């Protein structure tokens, strides 16, 4: 827990999460997640519970739908059906009637204009028209801003009207889920330190006025953030590379940097998409050890995607096996290893 407590910048994430009524020990609950791309069903009706503090892995051959499922959980793609609950709050669901939302933006202004016309403004002269116009414009700007900033009550209003969109990727981060990508997606032309600082973005509180004034508050915050970012870099085992551009780092270090960046948002749940892809055996075991340590030291819950079984077997508490988008097995690593369906899926696909 020490790292979490040393977060100097902002109140811990736990305080910002809305519903304290977390459902028992289950941190994340996916129900009936389905995703279709055109005619192809990439993920079909997958359920998954991630207990607090656990390491859950999803494995499966190439094209099993692991990454698709993962992206649904991360809020990057909307599911065709199903929902994901995080800490008892519905985070991601199938978006419904999203086209209504743009209409909602203009509806208030149109109503104002119609009411004004009904009251006979057009006969009243320029002033009435000007006031109506300003009122309509003001409402338009307000609704636009609301739609962009999305305060919680706006989201809830949309939910009540049945036109909610899924959480955006950044909402998912704010809720306490951090992630890495399968093919590393660092900010290539930013330094390692800056990459981690972007990860801390949601915890930095300086605003436009601070930016313009270059206020002391902002400077203190930035210094603290940089200190914390360096700590995170050390934590994942990166030294002496703070000012190196991300793209100049060796491959293994890029993976570590991405991990540090994901940790910077102080996540409760960490999603790792093939963290050892492209690594040699030595790097792989180092990374596996690091993941285990993160769980222990930071109290993180981890959802891992892998198709390298050796990684998974070592550290997972619970394994879900997907093939062709469907769940074919689930259980402890031992159970899964012995499941004939799993063996068939792996050998079957590789034999064909």
């Amino acid at each position, binding site marked *: 827990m020490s790292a979490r407590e040393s977060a100097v910048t902002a109140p811990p994430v736990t305080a910002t999460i809305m519903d304290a009524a977390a459902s028992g020990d289950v941190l994340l609950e996916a129900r009936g997640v*389905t995703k279709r791309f055109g005619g192809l069903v990439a993920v079909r009706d997958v359920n998954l519970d991630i207990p607090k503090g656990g390491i859950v892995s999803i494995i499966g051959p190439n094209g099993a739908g692991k990454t698709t499922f993962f992206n649904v959980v991360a809020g990057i793609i909307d599911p065709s059906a199903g929902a994901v609950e995080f800490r008892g709050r519905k985070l991601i669901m199938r978006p419904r009637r999203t086209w209504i939302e*743009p209409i909602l933006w203009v509806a208030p202004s149109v109503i104002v204009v119609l009411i004004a016309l009904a009251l006979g403004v057009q006969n009243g002269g320029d002033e009435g028209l000007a006031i109506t116009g300003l009122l309509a414009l003001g409402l338009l700007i307000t609704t636009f801003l609301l739609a962009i900033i999305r305060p919680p009550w706006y989201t809830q209003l949309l939910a009540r009207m049945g036109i909610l969109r899924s959480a955006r990727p950044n909402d998912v981060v704010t809720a306490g889920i951090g992630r890495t*990508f399968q093919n590393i997606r660092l900010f290539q032309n930013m330094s390692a330190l800056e990459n981690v600082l972007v990860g801390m973005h949601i915890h930095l509180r300086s605003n436009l006025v601070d930016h313009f004034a270059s206020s002391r508050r902002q400077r203190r915050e930035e210094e603290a953030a940089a200190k914390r970012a360096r700590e995170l870099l050390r934590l994942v085992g990166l030294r002496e590379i703070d000012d190196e551009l991300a793209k100049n780092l060796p491959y293994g270090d890029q993976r570590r940097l991405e991990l540090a960046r994901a940790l910077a948002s102080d996540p409760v749940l960490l999603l790792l998409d093939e963290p050892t892809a492209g690594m040699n055996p030595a790097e792989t075991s180092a990374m596996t050890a690091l993941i285990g340590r993160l769980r222990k030291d930071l109290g993180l819950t981890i959802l891992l995607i892998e198709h390298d079984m050796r990684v998974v077997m070592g550290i997972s508490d619970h394994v879900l096996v997907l093939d062709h988008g469907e769940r074919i097995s689930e259980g402890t690593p031992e159970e899964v290893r012995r499941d004939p369906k799993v063996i068939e899926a792996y050998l079957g696909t590789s034999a064909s």
Partner: protein
Amino acid sequence: MTTTTTVLSARPSFVETFQRLRLGPYLFVLGVAAIDYVVIGPNQFVNALTIGAIYALVALGYTMVYGIIELINFAHGDVFMVGAFTSMFVLTQALGQDGPIDSPGMLAVVLFINFTITMIALGILGAAIERFAYRPLRHAPRLAPLITAIGVSFILQNIIQIIYGPSPINTPQVIDPAARVEIGGVSIGVVNIFTIVTAVLLMIALQMLVSRTKIGRAMRSTASDRDAAQLMGVDINRTIAITFFIGSALAGAAGVVQGLYFGNIQFTLGFQAGLKAFTAAVLGGIGNITGAALGGFVIGFVEVTAGALGFFVWGQAAVFAVLIITLVFRPSGLLGQQLGERT
């Protein structure tokens, strides 16, 4: 869990089948066109189709170039303008025409020569622009070729202005603009029919070229992954040059038609038309050839309708309003890929 299985296990429902055919955008445009027909009447309707056909031809060039090198080729509108002037030059100087030609055989020969020369000349111009202004910048930052495109646009405009002067000049309408035929009780100008048919034939030819031939395959593979295409032995430079050639030749054809239909041309023609054509390409889903054609017709309709309803000066504004509204609802255009994020 139970609710989803019912949806999935059953045969694809009617709605699903319908969605898979992706006819929605076409039906939408057809529906709008039908309503429009009632609003603006048959004459303006044909007018809209004609103008739409010209925009569509220009839009094809934008969409092809964008599809293959992700460049907004700002000079393309001016290439179209140069096409109109080239056509005028061919007609007046090389063929000595100054008005309607009565004999159909003669007319066909003149038009054939005019189209051939203009399209080849413009194709070469387009390929040359690519060679000298864009190819050296292929590995430069993305905006660098955009600036040279703007520069090329200024150059083309100024050259034409120097040669032909700043005011509009007349171009021979070799198809008699007064000639009309009766189709289904509606009298339609021959030149309208000619324009629409030419445009549609060229679009079909382009579609065949892209989908059926070897060079079309090279273009598609270059568009989807340039490096991989190169590794597979596709000559990237040649493919891109051919794309520019074809796109500019189509703009040349549009220029010919523009002169035939409107009868006068001006050096500023390119920017406005180019803007609308590019809007058409985006509206249809940039990079998508059918989309560009569809978008061109939509823009034609919007513009003519605005004019017919007495809002002529707002035509341009209406075009962009339609674009913005379309993009709010379909962020990738009418036929664009609804791109999932690649991770």
